[in-house]
């Protein structure tokens, strides 16, 4: 029996998409590099063998500058900064990604619902305006401080901060799209509202949503760092870039510059990588429209 039409079709489609993606990567080497950096950070954080134990203090070698055995130096407790920088990725990255994912999963459906022309949608958006009048970082701090320093609460806090973004973005994209000709055409051929939503509206929003998700992760990394900088969220002896930068900022005054440097660079790299990926995603999806 010959191969079915649909499987040939889907293989062809896959190959076409894969080819397009490959071409895209070749032209946007930045995105490829960013992806590699992030993947390396995450995998290293999870699996890499570390030269030193990242949480067992070593009082004999406190605050030593970068040298042959401690590449990035040690901190006040004698912990190897290199090992801690790497292992911090185990917490910081997954937390940031989870937080962003949760806000996506809550924010996008809400945004789609808010893009309809109902009274509920109007009221909801006014409520959202009020909610966003709070400084959300402060809100996150309060939540975590009140409900406890566990990982779940950090994710909730990050999600809270990012959900409004997703709602607004999804809503504005959906609003604009609802006026477009091909949506009207879909209605004209008899597509049910559900079909219009899933087959026409969503696929055309997905690109900007993923780009926004990438930005949200970048933002979340900074938020986590800020939280642990303030002593909330991830606390010592767990390794977190923010906490390390906190300690580093104090030791900077006494001339020990290296304590904050490595984690600072790590945050910077992660954030820039996510931004690069976001840009790349946007241009990939935009190009496909032309």
């Amino acid at each position, binding site marked *: 029996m010959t191969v*079915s*039409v*649909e499987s040939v*079709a889907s293989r*062809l*489609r896959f190959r*076409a998409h894969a080819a397009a993606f490959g071409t895209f990567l070749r032209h946007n080497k930045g995105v490829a590099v960013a992806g590699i950096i992030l993947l390396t950070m995450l995998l290293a954080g999870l699996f890499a063998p570390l030269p030193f134990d990242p949480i067992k203090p070593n009082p004999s070698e406190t605050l030593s500058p970068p040298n042959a055995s401690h590449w990035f130096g040690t901190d006040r407790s004698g912990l190897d900064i290199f090992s801690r920088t790497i292992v911090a990725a185990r917490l910081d990255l997954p937390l940031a990604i989870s937080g962003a994912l949760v806000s996506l999963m809550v924010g996008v459906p809400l945004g789609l619902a808010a893009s309809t022309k109902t009274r509920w949608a109007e009221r909801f958006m006014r409520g959202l305006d009020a909610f966003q009048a709070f400084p959300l970082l402060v809100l996150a701090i309060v939540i975590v401080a009140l409900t406890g320093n566990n990982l779940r609460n950090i994710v909730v806090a990050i999600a809270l901060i990012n959900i409004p973004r997703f709602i607004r973005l999804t809503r504005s994209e959906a609003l604009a799209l609802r006026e*477009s*000709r*091909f949506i*009207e*055409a*879909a*209605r*004209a*051929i*008899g*597509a*049910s509202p559900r*079909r219009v939503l899933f*087959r*026409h509206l969503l*696929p*055309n929003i997905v690109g900007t949503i993923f780009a926004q998700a990438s930005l949200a992760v970048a933002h979340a990394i900074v938020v986590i760092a800020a939280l642990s900088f303030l002593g909330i969220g991830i606390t010592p002896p767990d390794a977190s870039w923010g906490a390390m930068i906190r300690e580093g900022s104090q030791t900077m005054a006494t001339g020990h510059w290296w304590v904050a440097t490595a984690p600072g660079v790590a945050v910077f790299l992660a954030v820039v990588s996510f931004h690069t990926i976001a840009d790349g995603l946007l241009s990939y999806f935009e190009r*496909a*429209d*032309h």
Partner: protein
Amino acid sequence: MMALVELHNVEKRFPVRGGKTVHAVNGVSLSIEPSETVALIGESGSGKSTLGRLVLGLHQPSSGQITFDGHDISTMPAAELRTLRSQMTVVFQEPDESLNPRMSIGSIIEEPLVIHEPALTPGERKARVVDALEHVTLTEDLYYRYPHQLSGGQQQRVGIARAIVSRPKFIVLDEPTSSLDLSVRSAILKLLARLQSELHLAYLFISHDIHTVSYVSDRIAVMYLGQVMEMGPTAEVFANPRHPYTMALLSATLWPDPEVRPAQIRLTGEIPRPTELPAGCLFHTRCPYQDDPRCETERPVLREVAPGHWVRTFYDRDEPAVVGIDLLGL
């Protein structure tokens, strides 16, 4: 026998910001028979596009009745209306914008079948799509391509293929060739004519271009500010225009023949806002004639001045057409 599409005194009003109301369609009655082409011609603000959408049921009329194939669609619930959409389809003006950029050509064309004929197997669906592609003279290899890879003419053909795949009886064409170059336009117009005779389609052809309309349509309705001002067989209306607006339109048309210079009927002023319709005859604020006292106070009704030729005006011309264009001569 009832016509395929019938409109009785259809009106459509839209509320807009500031408490005002846009009077888009102000009492239109017309009918479309199977396999015939009726053209709606008018300038911006004439309401022709809104009327097209009313006929398709994409808007509900504020008052009046619209029937399609015997069904009253003006008050039909949405779900029931959807089932009729396999029989009345649409082709829009902007070919690139009317195709979902994330769907392949094959998926775009087969979608009406997925919706209305769910019993078909994927193989059967593909065969129908290929058949539709052949009808619009596109090759099968376009099946897996995406809209942005096609030229404007090809995109419009895809739009037409999507409109015929469900074997409809009636297609609303809203300025289908206005965005296309002349050389592409002629190919699409010929295609539409061929499809009409092959597939026994009725067309409502909406346009602002007199040349296009003269080629494609059997009957024509001239619209101004949401009303039909003149209606009748195309050749007859063009040869003997009886409404001053029709005359103005014809005289304003730029004929691509340097030696044809019709007498100019000049209109005064600008088109009134659809939120503030003039009293009396809707056209009187710009009419070069206005020699009847009723023009400012009464709305004229459609009256038959020749078989099948209706006019809505108080202007009664005895002398032969100032600006009639004899399209069948030469």
